[in-house]
């Protein structure tokens, strides 16, 4: 009997050994991976009713703050502008963790980051609540203009300053009011969260950053870049011109005919020409250019400091002809804005940033997020050709709502897409000295009259550009 007892004992020791090993696996070996997991809201939940810094816009509006309240919990997180900044600030909740800046910059806001905790020498010895204030590159006036222009529409808008990559405005609709989720009434907050999460139009989703849509004609910019680099347009030009109206002689250099052809191509959006071009360029060159623009990066394009959130990687269609016109290729509005900003910035790709700096309790800057150049995606010459072509196309299209003496715009719209019910519009202004890139995505294309869809979206885009350029502090972002 004792021998059999030993058998049972050995089996159970082995089972307990399994527990030891598994515990070690979770707590030691894979701890770091689990801590950085996208679904891990532990840290931000724990910081829920702790002292917490403010989130401010570049022009000084407080968009998230913690106030003292009476009750079992001493502090309440408030968002003075409600749903206006919902996807930027995100929310912080006692039951559902958090999102947006509240989550990604939790270390700074809650003061658990060492640079925030130890603000002067005395902090080594005194344990006091130190928090950091997060200052965004977002401007309140730009955000107001965007909200007004996007009123009543589902979709997203991104406004970027091309020279620095700073995001000046970011809008996504439908959205939510984070004040409800941060409520101390935990049952109501949990119920609200479940309603939002299960809602079919996904108000919790930040469309500007994390939702991708098929690009369609917008992708032709990438194809055009590849064509210019491969020096293919000269021959195409002859082909095109012989087919089209024979009004102009081709006496100019190869480059200048490129411009002309390109603008014609963009204007007519002649699918077959693009497909033929795509065949000539080939799959590998197309994807290499797309990668240089940050569209098909191994690590998807992200805002500086936002490692959390799910964004699927873009993948080119397997046939180069379909790929050339962006069929089945999806990207987020931020990525599109990034693409246009790169062209506007002479081909230099800047890291998009939404946070400018972290401030200490006395207003000193603890950490600056300086503009960061990622790479020279395309040569200056290529970028200039693309700019000219876009400007030319915009002139021919005569975007509505552009006044005679208004800013010059280089833009592109994409409607009548094969899949999905959405339309795109992206524009750079002014053409000579680009100050702003605006990308607008509208969902629910089927509700529009197909003919007026282009007019609607370019009107919205034009309105935002005009307003942003006229704002008194339009140079704030470039400091």
């Amino acid at each position, binding site marked *: 009997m004792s021998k059999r*007892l030993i058998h049972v004992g050995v089996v159970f020791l082995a089972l307990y050994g399994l527990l030891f090993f598994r*515990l070690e696996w979770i707590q030691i070996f894979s701890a770091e991976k689990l801590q950085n997991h996208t679904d891990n809201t532990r840290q931000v939940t724990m910081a829920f009713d702790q002292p917490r810094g403010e989130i401010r816009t570049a022009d000084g509006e407080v968009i998230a703050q913690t106030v003292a309240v009476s009750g079992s919990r001493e502090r309440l997180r408030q968002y003075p502008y409600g749903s206006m900044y919902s996807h930027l600030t995100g929310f912080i909740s006692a039951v559902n963790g958090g999102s947006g800046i509240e989550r990604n910059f939790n270390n700074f806001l809650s003061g658990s980051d060492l640079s925030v905790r130890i603000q002067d020498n005395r902090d080594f010895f005194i344990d006091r609540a130190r928090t950091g204030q997060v200052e965004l590159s977002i401007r309140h006036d730009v955000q107001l203009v965007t909200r007004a222009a996007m009123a009543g529409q589902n979709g997203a808008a991104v406004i970027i300053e091309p020279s620095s990559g700073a995001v000046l405005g970011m809008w996504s609709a439908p959205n939510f009011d984070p004040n409800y989720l941060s409520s101390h009434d935990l049952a109501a907050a949990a119920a609200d969260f479940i309603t939002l999460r299960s809602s079919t139009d996904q108000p919790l989703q930040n469309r500007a950053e994390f939702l991708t849509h098929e690009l369609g004609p917008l992708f032709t910019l990438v194809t055009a870049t590849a064509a210019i680099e491969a020096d293919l347009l000269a021959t195409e030009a002859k082909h095109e011109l012989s087919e089209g109206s024979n009004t102009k002689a081709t006496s100019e250099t190869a480059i200048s005919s490129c411009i002309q052809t390109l603008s014609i191509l963009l204007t007519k959006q002649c699918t077959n020409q693009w497909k033929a071009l795509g065949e000539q360029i080939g799959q590998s060159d197309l994807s290499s250019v797309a990668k240089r623009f940050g569209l098909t990066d191994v690590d998807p394009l992200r805002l500086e400091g936002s490692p959390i959130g799910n964004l699927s990687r873009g993948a080119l269609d397997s046939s180069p002809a379909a790929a050339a016109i962006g069929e089945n290729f999806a990207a987020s509005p931020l990525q599109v804005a990034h693409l246009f900003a790169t062209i506007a910035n002479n081909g230099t790709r800047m890291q998009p940033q939404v946070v400018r700096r972290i401030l200490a309790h006395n207003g000193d800057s603890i950490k600056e997020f300086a503009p960061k150049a990622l790479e020279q995606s395309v040569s200056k010459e290529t970028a200039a050709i693309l700019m000219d072509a876009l400007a030319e196309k915009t002139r021919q299209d005569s975007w509505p709502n552009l006044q005679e003496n208004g800013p010059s715009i280089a833009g592109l719209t994409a409607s009548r897409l094969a899949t999905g019910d959405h339309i795109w519009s992206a524009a750079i202004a002014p053409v000579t000295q680009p100050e702003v890139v605006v990308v607008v995505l509208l969902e629910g294309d089927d509700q529009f009259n197909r003919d007026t869809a282009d007019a609607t979206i370019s009107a919205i885009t034009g309105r935002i550009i005009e307003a942003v350029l006229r704002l008194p502090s339009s140079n704030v972002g470039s400091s």
Partner: protein
Amino acid sequence: MHKQRVIELTLLLLAIAITSATAAIAALDDQSEIGWIALPYIAGLALLWFASHLALRRRMPTANGLLLPVAALLQGLGFAFVLRIDSGATTKHLIWSAIATGAFLSVVIGVRSLKVVRRAGKLLGILGAIAVLLPPIFHTSTSYFIPSGFRIQSVYVDLQKIGIFCLIIFFADWLASYRLRNTAEHFGEVDRIEGDPSRFAPLIGGWLIASFLLIFNFDTGSAFIVCSVFLAMWWVAVGRAVDLLGYLIAVALSTLVAVTTVPEMHTRFQTWLNPGANPEWGDSITRSSFALAGGGLTGTGPGGGSGNWVPDVVDNLIFVPLAEELGFIGGTAILSTFVLLLGVGFRLANGASNEFDSIVTIGMTIFLASQTWSSIAVALQLLPPAGHSLPFISLNGAALVVGYTGLALLLKISEGIPFVPDKTQLLPQIRLSNRSPS
């Protein structure tokens, strides 16, 4: 005072010290709402432990001195955590602790000898079978974390665990009689019954219960507990390798059938393998992992953990805050404490004065050990999600009562085992006797 009682008293004092220290560290954390109000509760627990200690002193002075302090330490640790995570539950915890101690005392004082228990074996067998089989028929369970049974206020009384407890006694009685007859056959005292099929009876019974739990209760943890308890008792008493193999294959087949044909079971397995895909059910698994990972090697310290963020953290997943706040080191220490309990049980089973005692001891020991294992295994994603309280630690009064009753039975059995001092303790005596003749 007998040496075992001295050991017991010393270790009980240590358990009180550790409980108070853990509660105090949690109270020092500036966010916690606990303060001096914790004191009367800890004093109440200490009082209950001393009552148990005094009863043992009077009734069974020679019983093993390790069992009670180990249980007390685990209970105290659990209390120190419940105090902080769900401070409203402390009074309830204390009341259930008092009931558990009552059950403990009634076994210690009321049961003169295990023969009485054995005589009730058949009755307990019937009651146990009803308790195990009844709950799934009425579908009393609404969430996978709630064990099948009924609830008294917020405490879920896991009928099936009580049923298994009763079945252990019945089965030990059966196995002891079976062994007795086999021995008699062996010595030619009774006629041999050729081709006796009765050796298959426990196997088939155990398999039926396990399959029932898998298919109708969707609970791999309960099936694991039943299988390990019955296999351990059966193997120690009469087990044959071929039968064991057949049994294991049959259980594996039942599991396969349950996973592929029962939708509820299928969902549980899916959630277990990919918790992210099913946030409603998978949250408890993913959050457990995140909380444990947050603890790391040394833990966040008592009071520094994420507490209620992990669902059902004071009962079924109580191992998570323990290992999160005490770290891998603390989690290992708790696991070791349970291994110690297991070891003591095995030592008692080895030294028990008769076969019935020995088999009951192994059954009770494995009962506690497998409950512990499945509760922690669910938290560590080694088993599909199911609700199992951690013996002695969880805020689940019913589980505490069952645990303490089992503990009292183990103590009762240990009473008859002669106290053999370790060889190391003999060494100085030899040296002394060498010196003395001069």
